[in-house]
């Protein structure tokens, strides 16, 4: 199996793991980390795409996309962690589940 295909598959696997983590994990920090894993999966996929064929130099456009994506993921993660800290500070909760029922009833 050519290396780039291995990276692509690994990226896909990371994507799935991360996605599952966001859905299934309850602690907010775990969700955020899972989100980052999901992002890493996509970035790995992008890097594996950068290869045109066995002899050429890598295509720089996907690399640029990965860098942009990293910056965005950084900003989003920072924001998410701040939000999670604020939630913990005001309510003491570390998970989202406890609030959904009460919100709908308008408390």
């Amino acid at each position, binding site marked *: 199996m050519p290396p780039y295909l291995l990276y692509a598959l690994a990226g896909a696997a990371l994507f799935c793991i991360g996605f599952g983590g966001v859905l299934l994990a309850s602690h907010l920090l775990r969700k955020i980390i899972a989100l980052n894993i999901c992002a890493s999966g996509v970035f790995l*996929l*992008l890097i594996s795409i950068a290869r045109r064929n066995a002899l050429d130099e890598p295509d720089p456009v996907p690399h640029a*996309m990965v860098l942009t994506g990293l910056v*965005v993921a950084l900003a989003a993660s920072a924001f998410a962690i701040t939000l999670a800290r604020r939630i913990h500070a005001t309510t003491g*909760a570390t998970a*989202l589940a406890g*609030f959904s029922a009460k*919100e709908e009833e308008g408390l």
Partner: protein
Amino acid sequence: MITWVFLLPFAGALAAFLVGRRFEAAIGGLAVSANLAAAVLVAALVWNEGVQHHTIGGWGAPLGIVLTVDGLSAVMLLLTAFVAVGVTVYAMVHLRKETTAGGEGAGEELFWPLWLFLLAALNGVLLSGDIFNLYVLLELVGLSAIALASLAGKPDALVASMRYLLATMVASMFYLAGVALLYAGHHSLDIATLATTVGASGADRVACAFMVLGLLVKTALFPLHFWLPPAHANAIAPVSAVLSALVVKASFFILVRLWVSVFAGTVTVSMGQLLGALGAAAILWGSIQAMRQVRLKLLIAHSTVAQIGYLFLLFPLITVEGGLFGAAASWAPMAWTGTFFQVLAHALAKAAMFLAAGVIMLALGTDRLEAMHGTAGRLPMTTLALGLAGVTLIGLPPSGGFIAKWLLLQAVIESGQWWWAPVLVSGSLLTAGYVFLMLAYTFQPREDVPPLRAVPRWLEGSALGLALAAILVSFQTEQFLQLLSTGMPFSPEAHPQSPSDFAAAGFWMPLAIVGSSLVTAVAILFLREEQSRLRTIVNLGGAALKLVLIVIVALGVLAGRTYEARFQIVLGFDFLLRIDSLALLFTMLSAVLWFVTTVYAIGYLEGAPNRRRFFSFFSLCVTASVGVALAGNLITFFIFYEFLTLATYPLVVHRGTPESLRAGRTYLSYTLAGGIVLFVGVVWLHSLAGPFDFGQTHVLAALAAEHGAVLTTVVAILLLGLGVKAAIVPLHGWLPVAMVAPAPVSALLHAVAVVKAGAFGIVRVVYDVFGVSLAAQLKVLAPLAGIAAVTIIYGSLRALTQDDLKRRLAYSTVSQLSYIVLGVATVGPIATIGALMHLVHQGVMKITLFFCAGNLAETLHIHKVSEMAGVGRRMPWTMAAFTVAALAMIGVPPLAGFISKWYLGLGGLAAGNSWVMAVLLVSTVLNAGYFLPIIYAAWFKEPTSAWKETEPFLRQRFECSWLLLAPPLVTALLAVAMGVFAASPFSPMYLARQISAMLHAP
């Protein structure tokens, strides 16, 4: 040039961040205004020169980023800029330290940079032509929106923002994965380039699925909408407005862009149908959830979920067997423009609603619906904003939402995908459900409501301004549609403007007649509650003016002049007001009875609260009624027909008591359901036959040969929709219930406005749309006659058993109206004369009876027939009028009712239906059965118990206020005159004869 719409708000954001608290609001205002100017300039550019392109840095595709502005982008830019202005005005006032209510949270200084970043990103999304650029902009939109949502600081807001953040980030990951796959396959990120190369390969399909999925989460389509209601509801008001109005539309915009360009070869019919089905589910689910809410902002947020569902009806309509641009050519432009008109209308209305909710939150300290009792009186501007926005969301005319639903319905019918029509119908009804649920609270006064804090005028004004824009946008439809069509992927049809001769007097007269009461309505709104004398002058002045105008017009019509006012609304359909003899008949009835009822109402409501609101809606009611009369085609008729429903609701619930609100709910359920059924019929008919006016019966006659069965179905649907207002059994249930309204309302509703509109509609449909011969050919007249006969007998029988006087009169109306329907359904000119005469006679007779009932209730608190014994001695004049009118209704010669019944019976015989005569005889006997005992008891029996007098008898000169006495006497005299002088050239019979001759001409 086009990059300014991105750069200006972006620069503003940086400046606001650097400048700090003191000047950032000013910079915000400056940036938003500059953005509006830039958006207008870009739109003008697109209008004049077509699609605009700009390559960033001069590097074109496939490596560079190309910005593209077509008509759709231009319209969305204008929308974004306009909503931004409204929200900014609101925010500037709301966030000033002294007006921030407790609990709304700190962090206002971050609002401005974040809001301007969001605006810049939204504009960028509309410009970008590169899928990765779109990813970056989507992230910018998302992060700023979430940050804004969390600004409120409450735990609910923080948790909702967290959920929103996780959902949107996962969605972005899906989108980015799709971008990666597309790049892998085609080595380009440029949309225009990808449009040519992307096909239906495996990688392309997966990329399509991923990107669509990501965008669906961001657009909150059911069932991926879970994050939206808490996030939108818990944010501060300006943020909620932007989130619901603009942010969800950004991802929808991208979805549509990709669907029609990049993935045009990838998408399949089933994908389109799936999205449509999810949209339908969203409409259903969101509306039901909205009705269950106890907080206003959650109700509005769930409404967003529902309204977004409408947008997804675009996909099944454009993705059809022949591919996107093949067989879908004829209805796709309509679906496209309808969907984006819905985007326009919804964004304006939803922003208005959230800003209004913000005002209510500030004023009352809470947004619980129960706290909103009586806000119609306390916060009228805000309630009006909520009402207008609600009208747009339901899709009632005249609003942007109506145009959108009309276009969508027409596209649905023309495409043959008829299963979306029930979705549109039930969507409107469900939306009406929660809108009127919300509004009902505002009409109900209560003692223990929270005290009202003062709210700055600008806040209310910005909400009202946006709501008005949602309505006004429907008056500029053709321009918006033209702009939307620039660069559209589907070829639009051209609709040349029909020539309107503005200079002719014949153009302005119909408008003046309708406008006289509209101006009165608006003028009264601006008067204060205490200025009752001025209000009376305005009222009576308007009524008198209308009478004068109609007399002038009547003379003109007799001399052979034509009066016509025509504007194109959309797609070649005109708004047409035309005065023909039939219109004249109905208008004269409306005008005379309006004048009389106004006098009566002034007397009846002496000293009552909320008279300003009453008389304002009263005048609107008459505007709608006259509009119905003067309508020259089905669409104009429908617009005023629905407007009539809206205008009468506040009158029915005027007193605010639980019974009146219940009655209002019943009234609305019946009339709105009937209205939407009528709408479906009208749109279906026009999609078959194209636009046509009343009187052009040859249009449908030509279609009869091949489309006979369809035409029969359409006629049945039209009659069903009209039958609700015409109180045909079994659709009559609302009429007796609506009797809780004050007497002037019952009088007007039951003599002139609502019920006659239904009957008049049936007359128009049978005679002027289909024509008598076609109607007979389609075999609808016989069943209609049968149902009318059943209604006549049923109404009379129920009237016999009613003890409540007004309910007895209500059932009598049910019965009498079907005389008109029976006359229409009987073939032949004589029956037509009878029907038309009865239209007028019944109005005059019934209004007399209701006036008298009102007198009895107001002066002596008599509501039941059993209490009426001996009242003839106490109130002789009132009972005299009642007696005359009752005898006329029974059909005693030479009174009015006899003449019309005589003609109806003769008409039945002439048509060979002798059973008509039998039905009339039975009904006459029954009429006598429920009227004569009342008259006998009133004059000849002794009173059973003392009546509760409102004022001691000895103090007054007359038996009751002269304002209450004169109107019934006048109308009773009219009832006599119309019978005795029936042969003279000014009687209804003369006019009816003329009209009938015209309608039956070969």
